[in-house]
């Protein structure tokens, strides 16, 4: 491959030989072009490069020949350039590509490369001619322009204001990004009039009106409205619109910006509120001063200019206008002990914080002490010396006194609560009063109104020569102030004992006067029930009547004394009743226990040890208890421990003990959970030895059972005819059928089918007879109590079946009204049927003499919301007079000629044994209604789930 370099202006010899003059001319042209030019062969080989090219790149021809594999063309542009050249070579057309070329100084510059083919006369491509035009400056200008435009758009979109443009008809054309994001709308949703949906409904009309007038004016304008943000919240905005005019001055567009003015708006509202509240405060201040007695002052301390109001002066006991405003005078009025503590401390505090807050006492010119409280601000000069103080002062004497009294009361009540002796408490009480109301002696006289006399005088600061004679002093209405106070139950004020004629002849007067007592005020102290427990007495050595403050004190003291005395008496009573209780427990055979389930700690009363026959003081554990519990009842002990572990609120058991000598004790135990703290389960309970009662109960049950059986047997007598009828019917059928059968078999030929049918009937009638017998056996055959679930409807129906023919014979029309879905009851079926039978027969009997009306009997069952199942029998018989109603149930009381009068008595004891009730009422019209009700087996009045019911006949327990 031949190639020529023009690096030194001299062409290669081989080329010189093979090229024509045209070549030479071409090279000169190329060489003379002032911009970089490259010449390549039709195959793409670099043939020549002119000087500008070599100078631009700063490389030799040889180096530039391999331009495709060097970095002279920017790597990002290289592929495009090569591709453009190759495409041009294939098509033979010109190409034009922009690419960056590496200048000698290492800078890339943009070039526009124009590639043109050079052809011969036949149109064959001889060479390619690549003209490189530096377009770098132009390119950079373009980029800058583009960046500018992009920047502007970014600015519009990022300015915090909401920018928009609108057409001349007012409809929106453009919203900046911020605006759209603010509204949470897309550009399409917001454009035209879509944006108005985000305007607060209350503001829309006004905004539209403003917008129309701005457009009509053609001048910049503004309006305010609330805009709904994307989150639904409205904020106030200022809408500002500017017209854009074309060359002719006509408005062609509107531009606008909305600015958030929410804070400004709120500020306006707050400012208005602040002004209002300032005015209100001024009024309040005036009011507060007047009502709280807190007086304002403004004191320029160094100038001794004091703006003390006359009220402020009054707080110091000064006449209006008499305070000279000096620091020294002010200091002199403050109670000295408080100056050192409260006031100096408050000034030190004020120097650090500027806040003045002090409570201190002042001495009035008359010598009395008054508590003042000052709150305010202190101002300091440059040297740190106080020069001005403003604030309020108020009189807090009453509060301070109340505080003193409250702490005194607390102290006294603590003494009461901590069990200090009554003497100590009452002595302290007297000392307390003497400390507050100075220059007096106090005494409390405990009285015995049964005497009546003073049973104990207490007067800690009076000598025994005064108190001793008071002991056992009889109390009468006229014996002295205390006697009168105690008898008349009212306060007695003796202003001057010496000159009061009422007490002239009393023993007490001389006692008082001997001890310098002139004034004597006696106030009764009552129990809560209103009885006089004591008198509270204040003694003074000069004539006086109590001030309001002293009266307050008296009522406080008598109240505390009443509590102390009552408590002391209650404690005495408690000790007595504890002694009674112990004795009572012994007699009643009741022992107490407490049981901390969580720690296993069990505490027994002495009596409980005696019941279990353990040595008193033995450590009690469940295991130890287990050694005494009857083996058959051990499951109850386990059950109890399990329930207690769960923390059930109450439990109750009856169980037996098997003692060492083989005797059996029956115990009834009840326990209740005491309080409830997390992790702590404690039961308090009682255990009663019910052995004797159980024996009596068993004997009673035995007797009752016998009696019930006797009563049933008597009913049987009444029913004999009826029962005979019930048995005769099927017997008759049996005999008739058997006879028929015999005849059918004897016939010639024997009638086998007929005989078989009569045998079937015989069996059926036999069964019918045996049913009757079974019923009889169940009703009359046994007598032990058996608890089971009983359907009263079914039980009653069985009894009715037995008595049906008897009732028919008595011409009784029986009507049954049985409740559907009647809940079952728990009980002894036979006993309940006995009651039903008794009631049915009684009702029939009561109607036996009735001929003027149908002998109608109605048997009803039902249940009520209290979980009771009811049964009643209503008759139209002779009835009873109302005062007979209870006698009917007495044993051996009867209105019948025959009968022992035990039926109803037994019936009632049976029903009560089922925790039910049996009663009689007069029927409206004629006759009587006998009813009983017993708890349903699962009804709410059935025993609470945590209790245990003793099933007497089985000696076991149903829970």
């Amino acid at each position: 491959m031949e190639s020529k370099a023009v690096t030194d202006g001299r062409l290669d010899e081989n080329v010189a030989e093979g090229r024509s003059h045209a070549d030479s001319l071409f090279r000169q042209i190329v060489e003379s072009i002032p911009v970089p030019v490259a010449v390549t062969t039709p195959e793409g080989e670099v043939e020549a490069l002119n000087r500008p090219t070599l100078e631009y790149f700063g490389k030799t021809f040889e180096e530039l020949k391999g331009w495709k594999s060097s970095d002279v063309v920017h790597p990002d542009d290289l592929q495009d350039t090569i591709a453009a050249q190759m495409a041009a070579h294939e098509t033979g057309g010109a190409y034009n590509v922009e690419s960056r070329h590496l200048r000698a100084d290492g800078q890339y510059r943009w070039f526009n490369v124009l590639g043109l083919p050079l052809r011969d006369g036949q149109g064959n491509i001889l060479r390619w001619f690549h003209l490189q035009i530096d377009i770098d400056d132009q390119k950079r200008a373009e980029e800058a322009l583009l960046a500018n435009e992009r920047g502007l758009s970014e600015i519009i979109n990022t300015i915090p204001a909401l920018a928009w443009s609108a057409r001349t008809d007012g409809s929106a054309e453009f919203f900046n990004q911020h605006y759209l994001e603010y509204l949470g709308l897309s550009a399409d949703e917001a454009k035209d009039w879509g944006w108005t949906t985000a305007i607060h409904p209350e503001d829309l009309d006004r905004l539209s009106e403003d917008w129309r007038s701005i457009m009509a004016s053609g001048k910049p304008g503004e309006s305010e409205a609330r805009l709904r943000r994307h989150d639904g919240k409205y904020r106030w905005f200022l809408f500002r619109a500017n017209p854009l005019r074309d060359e002719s001055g006509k408005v062609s567009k509107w531009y606008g910006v909305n600015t958030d003015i929410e804070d400004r708006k709120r500020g306006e509202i707050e400012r208005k509120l602040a002004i209002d509240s300032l005015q209100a405060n001024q009024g309040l201040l005036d009011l507060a001063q007047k009502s709280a007695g807190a007086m304002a002052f403004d004191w320029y301390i160094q100038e001794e200019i004091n703006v003390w109001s006359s009220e402020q002066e009054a707080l110091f006991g000064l006449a209006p206008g008499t305070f000279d405003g000096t620091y020294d005078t002010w200091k002199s009025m403050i109670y000295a002990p408080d100056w050192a503590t409260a006031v100096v401390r408050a000034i030190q505090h004020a120097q650090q914080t500027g806040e003045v807050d002090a409570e201190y006492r002042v001495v009035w010119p008359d010598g009395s002490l008054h508590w003042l409280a000052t709150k305010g601000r202190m101002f300091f000069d440059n040297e740190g010396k106080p020069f001005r103080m403003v604030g309020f002062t108020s009189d807090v004497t009453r509060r301070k006194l109340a505080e003193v009294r409250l702490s005194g009361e607390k102290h006294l009540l603590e003494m009461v609560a901590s069990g200090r002796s009554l003497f100590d408490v009452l002595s302290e009480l007297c000392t307390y009063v003497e400390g507050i109301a100075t220059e007096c002696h106090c005494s409390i006289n405990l009285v015995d109104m049964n005497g009546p006399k003073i049973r104990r005088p207490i007067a800690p600061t009076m000598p025994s020569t005064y108190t001793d004679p008071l002991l056992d002093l009889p109390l009468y209405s006229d014996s002295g102030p205390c006697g009168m106070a105690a008898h008349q139950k009212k306060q007695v004020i003796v202003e001057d004992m010496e000159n009061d004629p009422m007490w002239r002849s009393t023993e007490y007067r001389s006692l008082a006067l001997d001890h310098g007592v002139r004034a004597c005020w006696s106030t009764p102290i009552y129990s809560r029930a209103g009885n006089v427990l004591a008198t509270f007495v204040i003694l003074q050595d000069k004539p006086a009547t109590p001030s309001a403050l002293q009266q307050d004190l008296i009522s406080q003291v008598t109240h505390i004394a009443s509590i102390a005395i009552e408590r002391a008496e209650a404690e005495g009573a408690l000790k007595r009743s504890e002694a009674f209780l112990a004795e009572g427990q012994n007699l009643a055979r009741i022992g107490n226990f407490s049981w901390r389930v969580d720690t296993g700690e069990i505490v027994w009363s002495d009596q409980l040890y005696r019941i279990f026959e353990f040595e008193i003081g033995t450590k009690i554990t469940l295991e130890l208890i287990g050694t005494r519990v009857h083996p058959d009842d051990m499951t109850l002990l386990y059950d109890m421990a399990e329930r207690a572990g769960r923390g059930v609120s109450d439990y109750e058991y009856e169980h037996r003990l098997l003692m060492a000598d083989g005797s059996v004790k029956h115990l009834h135990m009840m326990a209740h959970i005491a309080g409830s703290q997390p992790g702590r389960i404690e039961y308090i309970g009682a255990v009663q030895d019910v052995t004797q009662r159980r024996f009596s109960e068993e004997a009673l049950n035995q007797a009752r059972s016998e009696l019930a059986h006797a009563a049933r047997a008597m009913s049987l007598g009444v029913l004999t005819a009826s029962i005979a009828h019930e048995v005769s019917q099927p017997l008759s059928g049996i005999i008739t059928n058997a006879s028929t059968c015999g005849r059918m078999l004897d016939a010639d030929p024997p009638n086998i089918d007929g005989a078989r049918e009569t045998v079937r009937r015989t069996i059926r009638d036999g069964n019918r007879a045996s049913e009757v017998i079974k019923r009889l056996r169940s009703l009359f055959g046994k007598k032990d109590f058996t608890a089971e679930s009983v359907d009263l409807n079914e039980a009653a129906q069985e009894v009715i079946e037995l008595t049906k023919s008897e009732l028919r014979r008595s011409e009784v029309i029986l009507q049954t009204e049985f409740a559907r879905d009647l809940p079952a009851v728990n009980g002894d079926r036979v006993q309940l049927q006995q009651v039903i039978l008794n009631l049915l027969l009684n009702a029939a009997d009561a109607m036996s003499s009735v001929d003027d009306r149908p002998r109608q009997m109605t048997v009803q069952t039902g249940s009520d919301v209290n979980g009771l199942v009811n049964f009643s029998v209503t008759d139209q018989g002779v009835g009873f007079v109302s005062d007979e109603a209870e006698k009917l149930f007495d044993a051996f009381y009867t209105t019948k000629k025959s009968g022992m009068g035990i039926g109803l008595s037994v019936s009632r004891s049976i029903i009560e044994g089922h925790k039910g009730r049996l009663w009689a009422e007069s029927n409206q019209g004629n006759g009587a209604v006998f009813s009983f009700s017993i708890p349903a087996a699962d009804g709410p009045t059935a025993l609470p789930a945590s209790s245990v019911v003793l099933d007497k006949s089985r000696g076991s327990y149903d829970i």
Partner: protein
Amino acid sequence: MIYKIPLISVVDDDESVRESLPDLIRELGFSAEAFSSAEEFLESESLRSTDCLILDIAMPGMTGPDLQQELKRRREEIPIVFITARIDEADRPRLLENGAIDCLFKPFSEHDLLRAVNAALRTS
């Protein structure tokens, strides 16, 4: 003269009697019909053709004795044999006095029944 098999009618509220007694009566060679109440019998056509009435005493509604009185009032002279499941014989004399042929106490034997029926048929 054509011999007519005597018709014995049974009136009893007890179904087992109404089933078994007519069967036995037929085995004894009579024809038999059963009615569950006095009222039913009075309304039936058998009233005229009955030769002997076997009648329960205690029935709901019209009792046996009531029916006896009613027949007497209507001058229907049907011989009556009372049957009853009661053990109390106090009613018996009064019933016989009023023309009853016999009063059988349940359960009664085939022999007693046949004797009473024959006695009744003899009177008619």
